[in-house]
């Protein structure tokens, strides 16, 4: 295990981006950061800049307006990087996918149509325990498949 993998496992810093979420997932992500669930005990910190982050936590259906930004943020993050898609919307468009008849006019059919995703956390919104699980699994998986 190289030093980068080792460091990644001990301090998976998080960047949160809302790509058009209804806020349900966002507040659960914030609840994950606050005392009751406290993701910080895994060494995870919420960061403001993509350049400091290892894990991109995305919530919400990817809207056309936000799609360019998510690509830019993903490219600004240093390698190795991981992406966690939180919420059904982010995974597949969820309620905004018009029951199999394609997404709403402004929504992409899932985050993985734009950037590679390492963990999917289903739920609408997922419980903080599930988000915690997603983040810790990704941190453990670190190093595998990264440049």
């Amino acid at each position: 295990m190289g030093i980068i993998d080792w460091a990644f496992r001990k301090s998976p810093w998080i960047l949160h981006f809302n790509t058009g979420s209804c806020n349900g997932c966002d507040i659960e992500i914030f609840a994950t950061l606050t005392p009751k669930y406290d993701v910080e005990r895994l060494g995870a910190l919420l960061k403001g800049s993509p350049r400091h982050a290892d894990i991109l936590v995305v919530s919400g259906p990817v809207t056309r307006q936000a799609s360019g930004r998510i690509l830019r943020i993903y490219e600004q993050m240093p390698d190795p990087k991981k992406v966690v898609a939180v919420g059904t919307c982010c995974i597949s468009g969820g309620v905004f996918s018009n029951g199999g008849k394609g997404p709403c006019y402004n929504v992409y059919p899932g985050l993985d149509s734009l950037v590679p995703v390492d963990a999917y956390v289903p739920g609408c919104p997922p419980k903080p325990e599930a988000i915690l699980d997603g983040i810790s699994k990704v941190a453990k998986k670190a190093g595998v498949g990264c440049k």
Partner: protein
Amino acid sequence: MSSSYERIFDIPIGPQHPALKEPAMLKLKVDGEHVVGVDLDVSYNHRGIEKAAEYRTYIQNLYLIERICGICNVAQTLTYCLAVESLHGKEIPARARFLRIVAEEISRINSHLLWLGVAAHEIGFDTFFMHIWLDREITLGLMEALSGNRITSSYNVIGGVRRDVTEDLLSRIRKGLDDLEPRVKRYREIAINDRSILKRTQGVGILSPADAAATSAVGPTLRASGIKSDVRADDPYSSHDQVPFNVITSDGCDAHARIIVRLDEILESIQICRHCISKLPAGPILQRLPRRAPQGEAMSRVEAPRGELFHYICSDGSDKPYRCKVSTPTLANLPALVRMLTSKGRYVVNIADVPVILASIDPCFSCAARVERTGGV
């Protein structure tokens, strides 16, 4: 305002920025340290919900409308249900009306606590943020016990509510409220006395009563400017006329007044919940309504945690709405926000105060994103 700088610079904030919890783009025009103009783009969350609603039945729409905003989902479904019920011209059972109030007030407490935490975070008081969010878990627990989910509750359905309460659950809610009340009182004390909170919020983001009225501000933003206006009192929609409560106002007109107004509203909501629980009428919780709504138009408004929420539904007699229009409180508060963010005369806005002012209206851009701005990503 005197400044040695001649030129006016643009500072873009967003759409991804540590001070923003949701994507939005603020282009600040600054003259030295002072903000002299602002250009706001809140369309990043536009998902096309109003259009999507036209392709779904009234029942399916319930779950779509709920997802306009996760924080005030109870208010969203309530407004939608009221509009559909008024299309049918039917009253819903009294027990359901009281249970709706309980759910609405619990979600208001939750929303205000959440906001208070975010506001504390914006002024750099993270300890306060963490404490508040820990206590907020009490309300989430109550919501989960009442409806089965922490956030997206689907509690209101067309014609009533989805779940009944038991005696056991009522006493649990009572206990939760009893636990919460002293905590909120303590936070109110801290917000009034703590020097760092006072320094960061007093005199910041001033909205005079005249400006508040001129820009049609709503909700706690309006009430913190001393104007008494609350849909629950002015146009009681769900048995609110049988519940005694005070409309909280403050004359501070600044960000600090908005904190106090919201804290007082939490205490008021706790009383409303207690009253509804003790006076809960017996009877059914659901009045079944036909799938097709009669032809016509209906409007409804509700006091959501952030202010007046307005729905309009046009029906052509089928089982799908012909048009669904939503007007949310954040949208109504944006003109007031622009005024608060612009230095004028002796009132100056420093760049460092921008996050506090922005947070003080409790923005919810996922509600406000009703249109898409094309042309720039």
